[in-house]
């Protein structure tokens, strides 16, 4: 007996039997029913991501003539990106800043996540909410807060001045790549804590007890058991911070100054003052492409590394 013949068929009607066969097939296929339920969401998301990106790719092969687009496909924009030193310098600077930010964020967040995972026994919920909450509040305002702190007349400078420690305000604080890194690290720290915390929390405590039983002290237990097992979370956190910060535009605009400009500012300008949309599209795609390559390489390397650790 095959699947198809086991549906309760209406006696005479052929057409009816085909639709009821289909309906029975539908009822039997859990996957199909699930997809039906999922379809609005999936459709919206796919369309909202695919169509714009497809168009963006196409536009990157156009050129801007005055206020119109020359829709003849050409690689002018990409050639210009490769030739001009400005773009590549900005791109490299952006990658460096994001990399530094990701590293810094993960380094400062790890001990925090460790504390909540291992040393908080009551009110864990409270700690989790407190350490992630800033991330859900206004990004703009948090970046602006650093502008106030690091500025010429900002908190640090006027504080030090009024305490008599310095005569002239420190100029290097604001409008530099360092300012960008600090601000980004602060803004994204809350985002990094969560994946690290989750992977630490998942570690089976009895593994640590076994290690203790076999002779390892606390430091060794951490290095040989906790750290390796938490590495997936750490790797994930680094990637989760790196990718979005490469394209950050608000922070360099507010605290970066000319030395701290990142690639996103140039992209934004293409859609603003410079009015070269195809170039903007090409820059955006180049940035995404490089980020994608780096991310894939990173994932591959980290997977190899975790396989080694076993």
């Amino acid at each position: 007996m095959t699947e198809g013949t086991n549906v309760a068929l209406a006696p005479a009607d052929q057409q009816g039997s085909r639709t009821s066969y289909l309906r029975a097939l539908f009822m039997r296929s859990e996957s199909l029913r699930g997809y039906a339920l999922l379809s609005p969401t999936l459709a919206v998301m796919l369309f909202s991501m695919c169509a714009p990106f497809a168009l963006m790719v196409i536009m990157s092969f156009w050129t801007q003539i005055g206020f119109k687009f020359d829709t003849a496909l050409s690689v002018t924009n990409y050639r210009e990106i490769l030739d001009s030193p400005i773009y590549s310098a900005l791109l490299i600077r952006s990658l460096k800043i994001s990399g530094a930010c990701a590293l810094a964020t993960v380094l400062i967040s790890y001990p925090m996540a460790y504390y909540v995972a291992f040393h908080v026994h009551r009110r864990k919920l409270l700690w989790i909410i407190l350490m992630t909450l800033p991330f859900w509040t206004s990004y703009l305002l948090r970046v602006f807060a650093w502008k106030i702190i690091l500025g010429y007349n900002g908190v640090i400078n006027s504080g030090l001045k009024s305490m008599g420690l310095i005569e002239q305000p420190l100029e290097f604080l604001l409008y530099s790549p360092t300012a960008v890194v600090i601000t980004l690290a602060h803004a994204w720290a809350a985002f990094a804590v969560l994946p690290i915390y989750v992977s630490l929390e998942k570690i089976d405590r009895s593994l640590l007890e076994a290690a203790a039983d076999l002779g390892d002290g606390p430091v060794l237990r951490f290095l040989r058991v906790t750290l390796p097992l938490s590495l997936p979370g750490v790797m994930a956190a680094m990637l989760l911070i790196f990718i979005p910060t490469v394209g950050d535009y608000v922070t360099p605009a507010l605290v970066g100054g000319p030395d701290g400009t990142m690639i996103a500012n140039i992209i934004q300008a293409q859609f603003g003052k410079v009015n070269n949309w195809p170039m903007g599209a090409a820059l955006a795609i180049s940035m995404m492409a490089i980020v994608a390559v780096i991310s894939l390489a990173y994932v591959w390397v980290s997977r190899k590394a975790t396989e080694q650790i076993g």
Partner: protein
Amino acid sequence: MSDVSYIKRPNRPLHVYALSYLAFLYIPVLFLPLFSFNDSIYISFPLKGFTTNWYASMASDEPMHAALINSLKVGAVASVIATLLGILGAKAVTRYKIFGQRTVVSTIMLPLVIPGIVMGVALLILLSRIGINLSLVTITLGHILICVPFSMATLMARFEGLDSSMEEAAADLGDNAWWVFWRVTFPMVFPGILASLLLCFTISFDEFIMAFFLSGTDPTLPIYIYSQLRFPQKLPGVLALGACILVVSFFVVFFSQWLQRQGEFGAAGKGDHA
């Protein structure tokens, strides 16, 4: 889950570190409210004097009111639609064995890792080629896109915590799919739905980058704030506004997270004790 007996010795340095970390996280943000009471246009530390003038001036700031209402509208619509899509998606993914589930979920979660500027630019290009004018509607569309991953993540956690045998029992007792949803699924998932609504609203309310690219003549509040930043005399007013926003966000998000994570901590339904 954590074994209390394992690490009994409290780790003082780590404890101090944790508190400093929280301080580092919150103190910079607290300067905003601090200086909003400063009796001067310029930042100076310590404060020159204490005043609530800047807050008072907010009451008469018409453009700000308009921007605020725009943000509320966009936030409300975006959060409702994103939550609806999130409910459908979360139910589908957690309750049915779908072929290619992980791929589908990763796809829906993509906006989380795509830089805001790329999404903003791409949508801008699409909308302008289709011929749709930029307005609050376009901002809302962009916000729905970035809110759906958060909504789905919140609701997936909630649905997973919900034992599917509950829904089966309801069906067994005579309810069709619609009634099962209303009488069992919805009441049990409701805290998650509320959490998702609040979270998405906050994200939309505070979102700047995409809004910046997709806005027409009507600004949302973050756009309005950004436009004021170039004027020094407007600075304290901006700080006052920022302080208000932060305080409200703080409470809304706290409540939403508490609602959501309650489920993860097994508050719903205790275990069997014979």
